[in-house]
């Protein structure tokens, strides 16, 4: 019984690992379909809450699989799910980065580094935009964001200090 669940965890998350092209969030719909619909490890509402927890907790947001594995099969399930989600994709990155190091002086690497830079900066701006939309920010949060952006851009302050201060402002209910 338990072995069956662990096998399901292993197969599900290692296949999602390879399918998650473009980042972990791209396989969330499939993850939801399997864990809620097929395996009944948790309810719809629980999945939504678990998603919120994993987004807010520190570290990679893909750790939602840790919580799903925990719900399905306790701590062993959590650890297995986490490893299964990271290992296959990690091996692929390993292979690619080996090729990348070998191509240190190749024109194709120079072209990719130079060409992708403006695209990456655009994607980072897009992720900031999507983050602030997902957090359902109102005008007070936008003011806080603007002030923090100005401080980050013009001073060498330790960012953690400012994130902590903003957390305190949130705790006081001002945003």
């Amino acid at each position, binding site marked *: 019984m338990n072995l069956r669940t662990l096998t399901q965890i292993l197969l599900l998350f290692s296949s999602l690992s390879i399918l998650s*092209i473009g*980042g*972990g969030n*791209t396989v969330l719909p499939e993850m939801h379909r399997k864990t809620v619909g097929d395996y009944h490890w948790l309810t719809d509402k629980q999945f939504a809450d*678990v998603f*919120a927890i994993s987004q*807010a*907790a520190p*570290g*990679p*947001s893909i*750790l939602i699989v*840790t*919580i799903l594995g*925990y719900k399905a099969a306790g*701590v062993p399930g959590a650890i297995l799910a*986490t490893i299964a989600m990271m290992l*296959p994709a*990690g091996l692929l*990155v*390993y292979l*690619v*980065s*080996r090729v*990348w*190091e070998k191509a240190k002086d190749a*024109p194709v690497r120079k072209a*990719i*580094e130079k*060409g*992708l*830079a403006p*695209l*990456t*900066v*655009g*994607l*980072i701006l*897009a*992720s*900031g*935009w999507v*983050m*602030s939309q997902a*957090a359902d920010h109102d005008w007070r949060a*936008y003011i*806080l*964001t603007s002030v*923090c*952006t100005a401080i*980050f851009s013009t001073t060498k302050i330790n960012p953690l200090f*400012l*994130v*902590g201060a*903003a*957390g305190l402002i*949130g*705790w006081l*209910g001002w*945003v």
Partner: protein
Amino acid sequence: MSEKPSLFDLALTFNHIALASFGGGLSAWSREVLVAEKGWMEDEEFLSAVTMCRILPGANQVNLAVFVGVKFHGIPGACCAVFGLTLIPVAIALALAYFYFQYHHIPAVQGILKGAAAAAVALTLSMVFKTGKKCLKGAVPILFFVAIFVMNGILRWPLLACLSLLAPMAIAWGWPRKKAS
């Protein structure tokens, strides 16, 4: 570039990045630590690594940890970086999961996280300014920058569609014009 970090340095540094990022902004934190603070990579190498890690399957930040770990120490480096990135966050996720399924409510941290998220967005925006200052010189790169922001951010087109449209043009633009003399 500073000295080659030890395996322990790798684990510790990625642990630091992970823990600093509550409320989000993991990419911005990665740059803050890897490029600005430690000097392990130049901005260009960092940015291209970030995009490759996004294209490849897997969580972007885990991929970046693998990439940086391999760069310095091969497979052991990758393992240490990923271990550092995930060990304490996994413990925290487990603790939160335990509380959530036990008591069916998330510990009252909503307000704190909302404030922290606003600052995390700010850190991400300031990263756009800092990295953009160097690579957004001229009309062509600015055009690429705006185009992908609109496609991926505003219109929410899938990343793969945006990149298969723009990346070939961008790489052609970035190709070294003259053979190295």
